[in-house]
């Protein structure tokens, strides 16, 4: 495997292999928390933290971890970091903790963390793994923010809770309910993939085939 540079990691995480749009990971939470931008943002920041530190720890321990129990080890590490986030929010940001409620615990079910630990951190050095976690988290957060922006704008007529649509605006209630999440996320996935194909197929067609 060719040596992976920090520059590649961020392009991969945010654009080329965006965890939500390209790898279709972390969909459950992308659907659930995107009816408001503040919820989506806190969720994203939590995920960035947990993914980065889990990947760092998994990578540090990768030489010592017996191969056949590595999944158990990963789950243990990820859950520990999720609990740390939960305790931190409860102690120092009680309002954020209250607003997010059950979602903090749900960070652990996000496939992105486990996926990146298994695919990337298990095979790469600690620092680059840490960066990979950060950029994959950012990639996830960006998609969430885009979906949440559209849903909140149309569903509540607000932007981060500030009314922007004016008096005559009728809220599209469907956008803040679960179907709205499916519509918006599908549109974003469709849009990004169309854009990507247009831009990238001509130069890297051979590479795609080789896979």
């Amino acid at each position, binding site marked *: 495997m060719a040596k992976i540079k920090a520059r590649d990691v961020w392009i991969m995480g945010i654009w080329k292999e965006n965890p939500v749009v390209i790898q279709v990971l972390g969909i459950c939470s992308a659907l659930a*928390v995107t009816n408001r931008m503040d919820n989506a943002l806190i969720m994203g920041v939590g995920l960035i933290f947990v993914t980065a530190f889990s990947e760092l720890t998994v990578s540090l321990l990768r030489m010592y971890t017996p191969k056949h129990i590595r999944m158990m080890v990963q789950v243990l590490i990820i859950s520990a970091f999720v609990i740390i986030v939960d*305790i931190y929010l409860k102690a120092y940001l*009680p309002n954020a903790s209250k*607003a997010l409620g059950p979602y903090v615990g749900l960070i652990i079910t996000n496939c992105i963390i486990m996926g990146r630990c298994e695919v990337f951190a298990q095979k790469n050095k600690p620092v680059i793994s840490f960066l990979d976690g950060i950029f994959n988290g950012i990639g996830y957060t960006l998609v969430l923010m885009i979906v949440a922006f559209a849903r909140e704008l149309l569903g509540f007529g607000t932007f981060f809770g500030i009314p922007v649509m004016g008096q005559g605006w009728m809220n599209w209630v469907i956008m*803040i309910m679960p179907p709205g999440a499916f519509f918006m996320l599908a549109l974003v996935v469709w849009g990004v993939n169309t854009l990507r194909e247009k831009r990238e197929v001509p130069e890297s067609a051979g590479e795609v085939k080789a896979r």
Partner: protein
Amino acid sequence: MTEEKKAAKRPLHETYYYPVIFMVLLTVVFISVLAYLNDSTREIIETAGEINEKESILYVLGIDYDSSIEGIQSAYEEGVKEESFGFVAKESGIEALFFSGSGLWGDIEGFISVSGDMKTLEGLTFTKQSETPGLGGRIEEMWFKEQFRGVEIDSGEGGPLVYRPEPGGNVDAISGATSTSNAVLKILNPFIREMLDESRGGGSNGQD
């Protein structure tokens, strides 16, 4: 014999007990870290919880307060009297009572307050809920809580709280969160009726 010798020579990470030792050690390390964090933040979390509760009580009793920790403490000590049934505002005589019941996903807890003569609701707030954020979770928003202020509660059957546009409706439900909205009334209505019955039964001795 020779096989046993081979086994003994195996490096540690290839032995069959190595995974067990590894897992145990790792678990111990992580649990110690978490236990330490939990222990060192317990006091902060408990005080935050207490302040939160006092703030909720001040809010339902309609007492003005400064939103710093000291402001809440002093406003609470000056303005609130703790009784066996709940909390009473010293100046206005408004009474706050604790209620709880089940919502859509988990328990909903909070305080509701009534005027001293038991004729109108004076406030409502939630201290614990795990409803869907952005939908049912909006019961914590001001517009929802504020509309319960001043609702008359002598209206009797089917109520006293009814969502508009039903006949006799006096508060708005949250669109997109029907289950949570209904759960709130299902908790509050019996609670208020019971409270009224008790106060009538108990109050008549003194007043007549």
